[in-house]
């Protein structure tokens, strides 16, 4: 009855008309059935996932750069902290050194002769001897036999001198000997070095009175150490009735483990006798 072409045109016009009518209706009054909610409920999780993924990637990307800068900043802050800690240690060291040197300076003023401060730069390589190397030598006026002291007492004497360094034998060395007096009773003896950073006061007569805790000072008779400098304190006294001498252990007043600076007393050179006529 109708040709195929006519049917297609008619169907096209009908579809457009229905579409226009539908759109006219839906524009004026939105549909209220629940399909929209279903569709949203169906799509939303995926949208959410995609959205989170994008956000995640974006944030990771942003955080990465942020982390890089934070890491750099962290590194820089760590360096600053290390530097500050180093400065702090250095400052503390300087403070301590300053205090020690002030003590030495105050002590130096009380000495009868001029003195020069020297730093200990090395210790004896052997475990059997107690000598140290100090950073002052002949160029600074040092010579063999000069006494070295600290504000806490006698340290030792110069036994070898080079141009800018000297070797100092500490009073705890076995070869060291200091003529000494027990301060309270004036009992006399020779302080000799021994093991374990201790000394012994030898040749103390058995009748000489002393007790643990008595101070031991230099007598000045040995011609090396000025009189009255503290050596240490009596730590123990061993004496048996038949002995001629007392065995007296003396704890030095100087802590040789932590000794870092000494004052070398520049005594005037002893006058060498000229040829006798």
């Amino acid at each position, binding site marked *: 009855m109708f040709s195929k072409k006519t049917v297609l045109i008619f169907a096209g016009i009908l579809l457009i008309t229905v579409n226009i009518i539908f759109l006219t209706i839906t524009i004026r009054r939105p549909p209220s059935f629940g399909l929209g909610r279903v569709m949203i409920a169906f799509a939303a999780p995926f949208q959410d996932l995609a959205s989170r993924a994008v956000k995640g990637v974006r944030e990771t990307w942003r955080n990465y750069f942020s982390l890089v800068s934070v890491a750099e900043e962290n590194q820089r802050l760590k360096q600053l902290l290390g530097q500050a800690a180093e400065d702090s240690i250095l400052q503390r060291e300087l403070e301590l050194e300053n205090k020690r040197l002030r003590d030495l300076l105050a002590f130096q003023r009380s000495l009868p002769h001029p003195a020069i401060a020297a730093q200990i*730069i*090395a*210790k*004896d*390589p*052997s*475990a*059997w*001897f*107690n*000598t140290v*190397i100090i950073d002052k030598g002949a160029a600074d006026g040092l010579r063999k036999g000069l006494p070295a002291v600290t504000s806490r007492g006698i340290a030792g004497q110069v*036994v*070898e001198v080079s141009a800018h360094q000297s*070797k100092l*034998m500490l009073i705890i*060395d*076995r*070869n060291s000997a200091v003529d000494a007096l027990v301060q309270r009773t004036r009992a006399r003896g020779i302080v*000799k*070095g*021994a*093991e*374990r950073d201790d000394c012994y006061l030898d040749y103390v007569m058995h009748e000489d009175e002393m007790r643990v805790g008595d101070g031991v000072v230099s007598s000045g008779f040995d011609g090396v150490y000025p009189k009255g400098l503290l050596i240490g304190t009596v730590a123990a006294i061993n004496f048996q009735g038949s002995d001629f001498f007392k065995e007296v252990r003396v704890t030095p007043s100087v802590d040789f483990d932590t000794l870092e600076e000494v004052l070398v007393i520049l005594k005037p050179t002893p006058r060498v006798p000229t040829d006798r006529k």
Partner: protein
Amino acid sequence: MRFFFYIATCLGLVVCQTALIPRLPAMGNFFDLLLPLVVYLAAFRPLHESVPFVMFLGILMDNLSGGAFGLYLTSYVWLLIGVRLATSVIRADNPILLVTLIMAGVLLQNVIFFGALAAAGPNLPHPGDALRVITEQIGWVLLVGPFLAVFMQHARRFMGKRMQRADAGPPAAAR
């Protein structure tokens, strides 16, 4: 050139021993760090090379120490002789042998020092203290010795290669 290398090594060890180690806690009785060097020279280097340098080491240490002059020299020379004799019958490649030789060196040195102190006068160290010092030193050798032995073997190989290169002369391109 080789002697400069030895002198630099020796100075480094001396500085370590006298200025660094004494400042570290619990290391007051560390063994003489030059003993391994003497063992190395005696075991792996020819006499004409080892003898003058061992003498130099001994004289240097004697001057730095407060003991009688010649104590270190004596201990080093006797250690040199002992190690030469030992390595003439046993191969010194073995790290255990090297550690044993260092330990023997520590003992020998302490015996010489103790003997010198005994000869010097009655003011001898207390035997208990002496034993403690020697035990601590041996302990340090046991702890550090294996590393030193391995280092010595590497040094020996390194020096051997250098010697071969030196014997072969300059490369052809340079001739």
